């Protein structure tokens, strides 16, 4: 198990002697689970905390830059992003390429590499599939469009499965969709690649999730037991590795008397819809931790403290 994880590590050193880790990612999840908002907040990286291990997030391609524009023109205006269109062909899905620079940290696993390096760079290229992929397309077995998406997914070394943390009543639906996804992916993949799957619970600025934000695994087990079981059995069968994360694209206001930096528009069984409340104090949390793990296979202690 550990063997492939180390083998799968794609860490290299670039010219600036910064450690470079690369990952090709696919973000999947229900409609309005916050996939594009996650990406836009990550690219925008507003009001960076000087004590954060993240030095900066830079868009590399035009699609990465578009995320920033949308974050400024839409999210910061207190509006919601448009739903992502279900593209007829997976090649037309936007591929966000970002470069995330982290301040160096000491790693016991790789002491030599971490000792002299001031920086770690995570290079990711990431597509977020329209929610309809997860809710509709996966159920159309044999459909050429599904096949096209699955083949596109094979390029990924890591999958981010985003769940609106407040949609615990949809646990069995999610487990069902996830099951379909993992089986279909396995049957498409002739080389039986092992992948990392990050279960990322979003909208954790909501109070009931925020208080548990440092216990992602426990939170997932409690709120999404069926999804959790599916992932665990997939891991045990040798499909790859699984880990759990909590994030909020909007973050909190205040630290002693915190409240979500979001205005709620709607909340029901299908989850929570909200918009940004105070763009000037917009500071998301937990966005880079899953990416670091997907790139390196290690959890970053400082990022987890976010």
């Amino acid at each position: 198990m550990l063997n492939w994880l180390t083998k799968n590590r794609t860490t290299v050193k670039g010219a600036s002697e910064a450690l470079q880790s690369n990952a090709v990612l696919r973000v999947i999840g229900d409609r309005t689970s916050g996939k594009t908002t996650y990406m836009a907040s990550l690219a925008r990286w507003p009001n960076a905390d000087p004590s954060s291990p993240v030095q900066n997030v830079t868009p590399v391609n035009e699609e990465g830059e578009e995320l920033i524009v949308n974050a400024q023109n839409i999210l910061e205006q207190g509006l919601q992003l448009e739903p992502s269109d279900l593209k007829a062909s997976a090649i037309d899905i936007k591929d966000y390429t970002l470069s995330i620079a982290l301040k160096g940290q000491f790693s016991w696993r790789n002491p030599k590499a971490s000792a002299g390096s001031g920086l770690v760079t995570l290079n990711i290229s990431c597509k977020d599939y329209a929610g309809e992929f997860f809710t509709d397309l996966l159920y159309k077995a044999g459909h050429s469009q599904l096949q096209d998406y699955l083949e596109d997914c094979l390029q990924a070394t890591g999958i981010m499965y985003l769940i609106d943390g407040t949609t615990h009543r949809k646990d069995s639906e999610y487990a069902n969709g996830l099951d379909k996804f993992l089986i279909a992916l396995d049957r498409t993949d002739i080389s039986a690649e092992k992948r990392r799957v990050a279960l990322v619970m979003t909208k954790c600025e909501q109070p009931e999730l925020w208080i548990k934000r440092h216990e992602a695994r426990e939170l997932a087990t409690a709120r999404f037991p069926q999804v959790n079981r599916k992932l665990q059995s997939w891991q045990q069968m040798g499909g790859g590795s699984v880990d759990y994360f909590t994030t909020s694209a909007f973050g909190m206001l205040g630290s002693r008397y915190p409240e979500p930096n979001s205005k709620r528009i709607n909340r029901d069984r299908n989850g929570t819809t909200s918009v940004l409340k105070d763009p000037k104090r917009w500071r998301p949390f937990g966005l880079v931790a899953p990416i670091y793990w997907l790139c390196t296979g290690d959890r970053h202690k400082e990022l987890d403290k976010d």
Partner: protein
Amino acid sequence: MTIAQTEIEIHEFSTGIRPERTADGGWVSLGFTGQYMNATINPVPHAIQRSIANKEFAVAEGASSDEPAIIGRIVSSEDSDWSVVAVVTKGRDEKGRSASLYRYFFCEGDKGVSNLWRIIGWIEDYQRSHNGEMPVFNPFDTRELEQPNLYTTSTPPQFNLLPETEASLLSDSAPILIPAEAQYTLQDINRLANKKAIADENHQPIAWAYKVKALEQPGRFQIIQAASDKAYELLQKVKATTPQVVAPLIDEQAFKAAIKGLINSSRVKLEYVQAIAEPLGNDRIPESYWKEIFDSQGANNALKQAIYSPQMVRLLTLRAIVIPQTLPEYLAWLEKGNKQNDSDKVSDEFQAQIRISLNQISHLSKNIEFNITDGIKILLPKLLNEQKPTLETVSWLLASPNGLWARFTRQFLQNIELDLQSMSQFAKGSEDFKLTDKAWQKIRGELEKYWQIRSCAPQEKYQSFSKLFEQLHQYKLAAFFYHIGLGIVPREIFLKLCPNGWHCLVYGVSVEREVTILEKLQFIIEEVRSTEVRVPFVIIFALISLSIGVGVGSYTGSPKSLISWVQAQVNRPKVDTNDSSIQSSEQADNQNCLPQSLKNEAVKNFPTTITLLQEAVKQLEKDPEIKMQPGNIKSEIKKILISKCPNFSDNNLDLMSIKAQKLADEQTKIKWINAIYFYQFNNNLKDKKGYITETNNNNFNQLDLLKSEIKTKLIKQEITK
């Protein structure tokens, strides 16, 4: 003006959603279907699909509103021009998110004929019969396939624009922005766009946008009317920063999709290589356009921020293929980042796959081939003046076994050779050259004198060429450029061209061989042997020089001048060098068998040599023509090898008992090496190194020669028996 009354078919289709009725009689979207809905035609004509994919109708995200925005344009295909009008409105999903929803109308027309005014006429009719409402997106307005809207008109469109207003508007550069409050009709806007398209003569098809907030491709319109004052301001800002209207030269999105498809996967798909190769043949596309496309995919940032992810390595490799001018920059970047990562391997693998796919894209492969050769043409002159990329990197690119550039290197070098061969004519005024670029003209200008004057000063910068060609095993070119860069050709290179002699004609220029220290000493000794006067002086001088490493030791001139130097020392009449002196020097080598300088390499290659010889014996044993005991074959091979080697007298050496892996003792090894060297020497083989390797074709021949010699002898023996 009257117009013939004709009925036209206006087809339509809309964004595909899963709609749900709401209590208030409206509807919400439960998600996209990824297919068009309410279509009167299936499939939608390809040209229109591509135009939509290229965002030519797209309003920017968040820029749709309840008030419809209308976009009209002519979409050209090979046989016809499609007139297309999109009506864009804002819809909502069940979660309250808004989305831009499109209802498209189109009709087919002959090339150069716009039917946009007819579609507008139909829309105006629709409004008249629907209380002024526009035919906006409506998921429940179900349409039947093959039941297009029919429209008949004989009335020419009415215009509100005064001629002077029109003239003043058209004097502005495209896209002409019209403020929200201007009371123009759709027909006015269409007419303006039509006139502007004709006036601009830039092949930009007619395109206009009416009451829009923001567009994805504002540069691709002649007329844009803003939906509000704020939108007008925004559009003005965008116009100021975007370049003048450029006619779309290629299917940009298809090209970008192909780039993405190629860089994001370790497996290269043929369709993407095809999509890249196709537009490369269009020489109307400026380099800046390609650069912009690659920058949009991150090329510039990868260079600036030193990002060496496999995607970026593939992206920049692809850029170097599409834009040959970027090849040197690409190599320098690769070199910089390659100290600690495997970028060269990623590039190698990518190149190998593209190389394979070239065979399958037939005529299109020429476009890529042309660019690759162009890249080499641009790259090589850089070696003369710039430090980056280094010789090692260039050599890697051009010699990589499965490399894309490597595939065309030989062909390119042939062109250099042809040009060098033509140089003697060039000196006489002929200008028939393969490489006609400025950089190569300059090189020829710098080389010209070597054909004209017998002894020219070397130009040091050309040593990089000589080293490169040596690494590429192009010994003739290497020898030539050693002559240009150093004034002399290293012994081992020279001997590959001319096994004997000190001079050789290369491309019509006489080049000279370097004299090794050993040879210098031999010369001295030879001279001393035949010298009656001042003998003790020369011997002492030579010994002193050798021991302190000056004088003779530091001498690196030509043999002729060396002789003159020796002559000066012994004060003798002039002695000319000729082949006999070389013979004697080579024979001097023979006395000691393999020269010391080659010994280490021979020892290193000894295990391979023995394995190959043992293989040869085995093969001969199996040869049906030889009916001899296996032991005799072994002894015969040894006999042949040692027959002329004076120091090889140990008859107990058994070839088959030497285990290549557990090596024989040093002495035995040296004996075998010497024997092989002698065999090579006496047969005047090209490679005289004291070893045989598998990789070198020449050595394969050596082994074959040895085998056939043994075979002939053995068969002869059989017959005499």
